[in-house]
């Protein structure tokens, strides 16, 4: 066994997680190997360092607040039929019944049983989904169809067909794998199940977020969605309360910030976004059965002459959910050797076997190059402020080196004041790495000829003298995102 293969064993040895035979093996090797003794010392140091956090004072007096929230939800949560069960009748429950009646039989408007829907759907272990999304902008229509299965925790498998091009995905935690049909040069990844309001693939988690944001909810007659279903589905219709969302975001801003006014202006422009939702929830189990939404967004472009609207972008999505808690197997796309099966490739993710990037110059930390797979990955996201999912990809070793060199060249250029960011209809690039590439920001944005390290300041950036943006544009085109680039208005400005 080579010493490089010993790392895991040494770490587990330091942590007292080896069986007797493995311990003996490690100890025999340590006797003859000074390098591994040094490695072991490092792992022991890590252990000491991190266990010191155990004794840090923790301020955690949350019992009262938690129990009062549970009490409040409890009143709203239990469906009335359940409260009538004889075993449950007791003095404290009378209060609960009263609360329930108030919530369930309101004077005006009908509320969705939000607490039940959250509780039931958050507890789902697996489900299937199929549906489609149609999007349109300036007469260009795009069709996406999807069929997907989800298994907790955070695993899913499905196919996504966008305008006739089919991709199959396996998603395991933060890692995505993609396989395409014959003859399709697939690149990079498609970001799915993001936390934005729009998902090409609208998971139940996304649907729950929509429920939280609704206003003007009306209850329509219950429906039987499919013949043979045990019971009916409650049908609700409402609209996303953009004002509430935007007001909340404005309230969270710092009025003293130099960007405050511009920020408020940009947010205000987005009040004209319209999203209508139809939702079908199982009458007895509260599982979400079907989701339909229609959205219209203003295509806003920001230029030197100010901000203007150029038409609208629309989305129409319908998704059915089924096979709740049925056993679903999601196979990993690996061969027994650990290599990817033929046809599969990685798509995005944060902990993939990564290109190794060699550091140079002003490194403060020294030895970050080398064998630590995963932590040097640089991922690039093409930010499309159109509501479409952002394409995301990772750089290989040579690309990462090229990008780092260009960023470093840009970081010595003159700084410029940033007065506006891309808004709806615009585009930019977001770049992120795991944090141990020295000398370049961990997160940064590039757009309109400037590079901004948003972790330092959102109002100051560097003039992009290293040509980072141009290079990223080429990268995006090489990966097949030309069309996405062309539909965004601030390109090549």
């Amino acid at each position: 066994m080579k010493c490089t293969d010993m790392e895991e064993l040494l770490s587990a040895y330091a942590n007292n997680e080896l069986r007797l035979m493995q311990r003996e093996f490690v100890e025999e090797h340590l006797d003859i190997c000074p390098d591994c003794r040094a490695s072991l010392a490092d792992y022991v140091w890590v252990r000491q360092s991190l266990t010191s956090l155990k004794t840090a004072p923790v301020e955690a007096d949350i019992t009262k607040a938690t129990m009062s929230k549970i009490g409040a939800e409890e009143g709203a949560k239990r469906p009335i039929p359940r409260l009538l069960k004889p075993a449950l009748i007791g003095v404290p429950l009378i209060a609960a019944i009263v609360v329930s009646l108030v919530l369930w039989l309101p004077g005006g408007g009908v509320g969705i049983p939000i607490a039940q829907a959250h509780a039931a759907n958050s507890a789902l272990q697996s489900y299937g989904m199929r549906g489609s999304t149609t999007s349109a902008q300036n007469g260009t229509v795009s069709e996406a169809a999807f069929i997907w299965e989800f298994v907790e925790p955070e695993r899913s498998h499905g196919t996504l067909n966008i305008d006739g091009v089919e991709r199959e995905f396996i998603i395991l935690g933060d890692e995505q794998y993609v396989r395409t049909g014959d003859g399709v040069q697939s690149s990079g990844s498609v970001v799915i199940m993001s936390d934005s309001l729009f998902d090409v693939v609208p998971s139940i988690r996304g649907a729950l977020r929509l429920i939280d944001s609704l206003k003007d909810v009306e209850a329509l007659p219950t429906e039987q969605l499919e013949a043979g279903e045990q019971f009916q589905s409650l049908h609700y219709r409402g609209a996303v309360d953009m004002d509430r969302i935007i007001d909340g975001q404005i309230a969270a801003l710092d009025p003293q910030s130099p960007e405050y006014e511009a920020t408020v202006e940009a947010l205000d422009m987005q009040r004209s976004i319209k999203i209508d939702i139809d939702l079908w929830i199982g009458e007895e189990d509260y599982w979400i059965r079907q989701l339909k939404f229609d959205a219209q967004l203003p295509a806003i472009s920001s230029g030197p002459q100010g901000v203007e609207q150029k038409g609208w972008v629309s989305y129409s999505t319908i998704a059915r959910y089924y096979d709740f808690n049925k056993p679903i197997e999601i196979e990993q796309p690996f061969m027994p050797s650990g290599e990817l099966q033929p046809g599969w490739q990685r798509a995005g993710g944060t902990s993939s076997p990564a290109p190794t990037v060699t550091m140079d110059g002003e490194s403060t930390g020294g030895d970050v190059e080398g064998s630590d797979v995963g932590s040097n990955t640089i991922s690039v996201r093409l930010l499309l402020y159109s509501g479409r999912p952002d394409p995301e990809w990772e750089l290989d070793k040579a690309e990462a080196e090229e990008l780092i060199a260009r960023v470093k060249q840009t970081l010595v250029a003159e700084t410029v004041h940033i007065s506006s960011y891309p808004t709806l209809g615009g585009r930019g690039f977001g770049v992120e790495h795991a944090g141990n590439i020295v000398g370049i920001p961990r997160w940064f944005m590039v757009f309109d000829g400037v590079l901004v390290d948003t972790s330092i300041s959102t109002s100051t950036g560097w003039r992009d003298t290293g040509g980072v943006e141009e290079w990223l544009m080429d990268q995006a085109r090489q990966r097949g995102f030309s069309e996405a680039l062309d539909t965004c208005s601030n390109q090549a400005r």
Partner: protein
Amino acid sequence: LNEAQVVAQVRSGVTDAFTGIVEQYQVPIVRYLHRLTGDPEVAKDLAQDTFIKAYQGILKTQADISFKAWLYRIATNNARQFHRRRRLITFIPFLDTERSNAPRVKDHSDRANERLVTGEALLKVPQDQRVCIVLHFVEGLKYREIAEIVGSSEEAVRKRVARGSKTFRQVYRIVLGGEEE
């Protein structure tokens, strides 16, 4: 605390029985979430949410793992969702309200300062690895228990702890370097 009894009581409508669970686990869960998110206030919010979800879950499902492991699992998912949101916010201009440049407190005792550097370095370790090293080193769980919480094999946990330890050591130096500048 007899957890099985508490679960039975909660199921039969005695909400207050759950108080014991919150009291018992609030410190470890808040501490765990603090180390995953880097923010003690966010940790308290996410911890409350964790207990509420656990409460709701008791009414709905039969967990196939120990109660403690199940709580950590919910907390881990909560932190993961928080990070997703934060990552998105980072890329949405104008909404960058969560990442502040709070000045680092300089006049701490050595130990507290060291913890500060340790905590900061920890945040730079990739999420999957961070979950495993915090559960092991800070929460004192065995690899077997962690595997249950994150839903993977013991071997995968062993790998993540080893990688996470290595990453931690590297970024610790970088963070320390920045501190001394």
